């Protein structure tokens, strides 16, 4: 009754429509207005046809579903709606309590509507089960629908359905069987699947195609839930493909796909089906027009796509199968009509298959050309899939994709952001040594004009590509500077140190670079990364700037005072971040040895000795001390930077800096390589040794701001340059004079330390990770032992995020310097080295606890070990 309303209403609404005419019909926007095959029915805007004139009112009867929907739709506010629904829910609950069978179906249907509006409906769960158990088809239909919407496998109630479904699977009416299959196939839990798999298998063998197609998809669901039941369906698959009915054929292909994807055995078994699948596909494309399965002139595209997908799985890394499908793939690729989306859907699937199987090279080129044609399509959806698929194949078919470069670059101008993003990724993938200049021109133009959301990725893409393929150093520097000037505030934090390193190493470009950067500084001081690099270079090469020696460009005439004016301007500018100010102050300091205006510089430095910014203040105080107490060392300390050695793996990580609030040490990496472990990691090790006062000395992460004035005082107290003691307080590297000196006197750290004749030892060897110690003793201080760890990796996968930590008893002091990398390459193809300095004033045997953390094959590993007593100060060490 509840549901038969539509039929009666339908008749009535047509009568009404005829009398009211066309106008009201036009007011209702039809979902499909472009389908010529659909017969047009005139409709009324109001819903009066839902309520026949012979409206029978029964006193206790709850309101009808459509009436409820109409009432709820009249609600003007959310509150009003909630009130209506609460009232109705109360009525429904009491009806449920009375075990009213007549209106249960109507009530559950109403509940489902309210559920869709977002209101709770769980109290209808059991009622759904009662409906399913009813004999009436209407009840069953709503009951199963309700079960699918309100129940799922995480509520135990659903198991109560199992028996009903079992009965219904054996019902005499196929539509009841269909409902049961559909419910099982949509929401069956693994318990249910185990219990009912037998029934499904039986139905998979029937000759009734209505049930067979549903049973096949039900089997797919069973296999997804309980893969070990797969074999049960194997016999039934035998003649699935000889079926004529497309529903059964389609669902069978889905079932076979599922089985092949889940089990290599099944995959091997079903490879023999390739010729049959090829035949079906051939029939589909060769057969004439069949109205039942035609979609815009193409015969059953849904089936074609599924077959192509199954072929892809079967042909993958199998020569014979791939060979057997080559011809048909070529045929589909050339014969499919491409004016409509359906045709392109098939072509897209064909391309994916060609790419995945062992296809002939000619076919692969054909596939890439299809994607190239897609790029020119007016339909943005097709351009999108083309870019996505080209991105997938660019590694394997680089040259073929390269041919479509100009079309891809054109997609950078697309209006759709998703297409733009794909085009950008693909463009970067296509950059190589031959096209770098042209591609970069396009990409830099894109960087200029693109939305802010793209800038960061685009900038880092340009950096990477430039680093890999730069045709000349000058081009490289120009490109990076161009990025910094156009998208400076979007670049990643490590681009500043990277550029500085690049500039340092291009000795012949120094004059040119400093001149260009100085000019950029005059133009704009808002782009912080650019300003930082410019400050650094001005400090480092200020003498070249004022001497006007540039050969590449017309030299500019600047005076020392002008340069200092600019740098001082940076110190006071509101646009400068604290980091930038740090760069500027250090630059000014360096100029004290390059310029003659020492007095002016002294003044600036002393002013900032009372800056509110602690970092800047500390820097200024230290520089001031350099002027006053250690003026004789100043020229040596501020000497020009040597060429930095670059290792590709730790290049970006070695100098970890942020352009944000916290201030990195601007002391050059030469002086002391900043350690990349945060100091709090040392606390774990303190725990290990069972005490809080064990002196684990680890240099603090340079990004940590100096925390307190007290520490600053300590630092100053330590400025006595007695080289025979390691400062007891962990501190910023800048304040550790012994190391500062070490760094200056011997650029590659510790290379002047004579090996003390202690043989190396293996401290750890487990799970393929081997750690060897080699020993040296520091020359000037016999109490300091230098241990170099060498970590190597014999496994076939590299170990990433490698962190070595060590702890020693409190009579020792220990300092870990930064590791050469945090990645231990696989197969012994390299080692990570890290220097440990141990101060051992009492000349005891050293016992060391080590903690290793790293990520291996995607999973994090952590291990602890203890070394045996090491005798560091004799000629032997005992193990």
């Amino acid at each position, binding site marked *: *009754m509840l*549901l*038969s309303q*539509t*039929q009666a209403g339908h008749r009535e609404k047509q009568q009404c429509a005829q009398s009211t005419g066309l106008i009201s019909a036009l007011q*209702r*926007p*039809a*979902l*499909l207005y472009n389908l010529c095959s*659909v017969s047009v*029915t005139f409709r009324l805007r109001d*819903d009066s046809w*839902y309520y026949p004139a012979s409206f*029978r009112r029964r006193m206790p009867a709850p309101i009808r579903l*459509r009436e409820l929907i109409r009432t709820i*739709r009249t609600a003007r506010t959310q509150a009003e709606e909630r009130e209506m629904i609460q009232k109705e829910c109360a009525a429904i609950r009491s009806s449920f309590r009375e075990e009213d069978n007549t209106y249960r179906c109507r009530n559950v249907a109403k509940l*489902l509507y309210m559920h*869709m509006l977002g209101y709770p409906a769980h109290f209808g769960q059991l009622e759904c089960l009662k409906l399913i158990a009813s004999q009436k088809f209407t009840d069953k239909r*709503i009951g199963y*629908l309700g079960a*699918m*919407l309100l129940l*799922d496998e*995480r509520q135990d109630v659903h198991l109560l359905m199992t028996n009903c479904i079992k009965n219904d699977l054996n019902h005499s009416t196929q*539509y009841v069987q*269909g409902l049961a299959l*559909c419910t099982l*196939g*949509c*929401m069956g*839990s693994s318990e249910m699947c185990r219990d009912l798999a037998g029934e499904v298998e039986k139905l998979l063998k029937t000759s009734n195609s*209505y049930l067979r*197609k*549903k049973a096949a*998809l*039900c089997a*797919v669901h069973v296999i*997804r839930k309980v893969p070990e039941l797969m074999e049960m369906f194997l016999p039934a698959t035998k003649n699935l493909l000889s079926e004529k009915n*497309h*529903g059964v054929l*389609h*669902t069978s292909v*889905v079932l076979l796909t599922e089985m092949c994807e889940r089990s290599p055995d099944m995959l091997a078994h079903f490879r023999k089906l390739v010729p049959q699948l090829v035949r079906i596909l051939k029939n589909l494309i060769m057969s004439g027009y069949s109205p*039942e399965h035609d*979609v815009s002139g193409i015969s*059953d595209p*849904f089936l074609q*796509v599924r077959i192509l997908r199954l072929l892809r799985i079967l042909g993958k890394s199998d020569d014979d199968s791939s060979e057997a499908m080559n011809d048909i793939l070529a045929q589909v690729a050339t014969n499919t009509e491409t004016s409509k*989306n*359906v045709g*392109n*859907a098939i072509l897209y*699937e064909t391309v994916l298959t060609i790419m995945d199987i062992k296809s002939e090279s000619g076919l692969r080129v054909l596939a890439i050309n299809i994607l190239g044609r897609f790029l020119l399509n007016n339909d*943005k*959806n097709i351009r*999108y*899939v083309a870019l996505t698929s080209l991105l997938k194949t660019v590694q394997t078919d680089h040259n073929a994709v390269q041919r479509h470069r100009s079309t891809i670059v054109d997609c950078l101008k697309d*209006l759709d*952001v998703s297409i733009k993003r794909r085009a950008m990724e693909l463009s970067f993938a296509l950059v190589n040594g031959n096209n770098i200049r042209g591609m970069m021109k396009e990409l830099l133009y894109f960087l200029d004009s693109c939305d802010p959301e793209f800038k960061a990725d685009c900038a880092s893409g340009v950096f990477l590509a430039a680093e890999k393929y730069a045709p000349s150093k000058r081009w490289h520097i120009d490109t990076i500077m161009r990025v910094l000037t156009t998208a400076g505030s979007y670049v990643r934090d490590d681009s500043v140190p990277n550029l500085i390193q690049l500039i340092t190493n291009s000795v012949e470009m120094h004059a040119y670079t400093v001149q260009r950067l100085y000019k950029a500084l005059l133009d704009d001081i808002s782009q912080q990364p650019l300003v930082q690099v410019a400050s650094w270079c001005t400090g480092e090469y200020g003498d070249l700037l004022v001497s006007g020696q540039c050969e590449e460009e017309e030299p500019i005439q600047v005076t020392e005072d002008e340069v200092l004016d600019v740098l001082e301007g940076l110190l006071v500018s509101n646009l400068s971040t604290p980091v930038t100010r740090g760069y500027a102050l250090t630059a000014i300091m360096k100029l004290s040895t390059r310029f003659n205006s020492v007095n002016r510089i002294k003044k600036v430095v002393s002013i900032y000795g009372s800056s509110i910014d602690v970092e800047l203040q500390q820097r200024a105080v230290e520089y001031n001390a350099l002027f006053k107490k250690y003026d004789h060392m100043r020229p040596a300390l501020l000497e020009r930077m040597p060429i930095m050695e670059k290792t590709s793996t730790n290049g970006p990580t070695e100098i970890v800096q942020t352009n944000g609030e916290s201030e990195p040490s601007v002391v050059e990496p030469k002086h002391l390589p900043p350690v990349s472990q945060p100091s709090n990691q040392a606390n774990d090790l303190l725990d290990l040794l069972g005490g809080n006062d064990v002196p684990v000395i680890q240099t603090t992460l340079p990004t940590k701001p100096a925390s307190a004035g007290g520490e600053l005082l300590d630092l100053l107290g330590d400025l006595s340059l007695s080289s025979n003691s390691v400062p007891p307080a962990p501190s910023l590297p800048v304040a550790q004079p012994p190391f500062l000196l070490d760094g200056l006197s011997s650029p590659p750290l510790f290379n002047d330390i004579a090996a003390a004749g202690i043989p190396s030892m293996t401290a750890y060897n487990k799970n393929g990770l081997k750690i060897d110690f080699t020993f040296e003793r520091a020359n000037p201080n016999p109490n300091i032992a230098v241990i170099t760890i060498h970590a190597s990796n014999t496994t076939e996968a590299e170990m990433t995020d490698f962190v070595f930590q060590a702890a020693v008893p409190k009579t020792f002091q220990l300092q870990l310097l930064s590791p050469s990398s945090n990645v231990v390459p696989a197969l012994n193809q390299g080692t990570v080295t890290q220097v440990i300095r141990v101060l051992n004033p009492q000349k005891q045997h050293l016992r060391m606890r080590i903690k290793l953390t790293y990520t291996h094959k995607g999973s994090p590993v952590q291990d602890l070990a203890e070394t045996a007593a090491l005798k560091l100060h004799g000629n032997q060490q005992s193990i």
Partner: protein
Amino acid sequence: MMRFMLLFSRQGKLRLQKWYTATGDRDKKKMVRELMQIVLARKPKMCSFLEWRDLKIVYKRYASLYFCCAIEEQDNELITLEIIHRFVELLDKYFGSVCELDIIFNFEKAYFILDEFLMGGEIQDTSKKSVLKAIEQADLLQEEDESPRSVLEEMGLA
């Protein structure tokens, strides 16, 4: 396989939801809200696909209604558009020039049609005719259920 299908209006009202994987009610609501926001914010010039979490979202607007499907990595976006279109065609044939109101007032019929077309996130039948025939037959079965009682009611005997 298709993970779920949502139908919602331009105003962000959910009209139909079908989930093919077990998902908690709260998660469902959160996902629906999130997706509606994303999809409704997209401009007409943008393409019909987007990446969302680990899924691909394919959506298409028909008059005031958005049809939105979540599919997996290996699924074909273009054929998913055809699946959506086929569903709309089925609704259109069944209701006769379907509009949003039909789906609101006859949501259960819309579900029946969907369940006859898709099952467990896969297409069940590629022929429009056989899907509609099955629905018609089931509707007839339902009417048979009702008619004897209606006659009794007509005569005032109920």
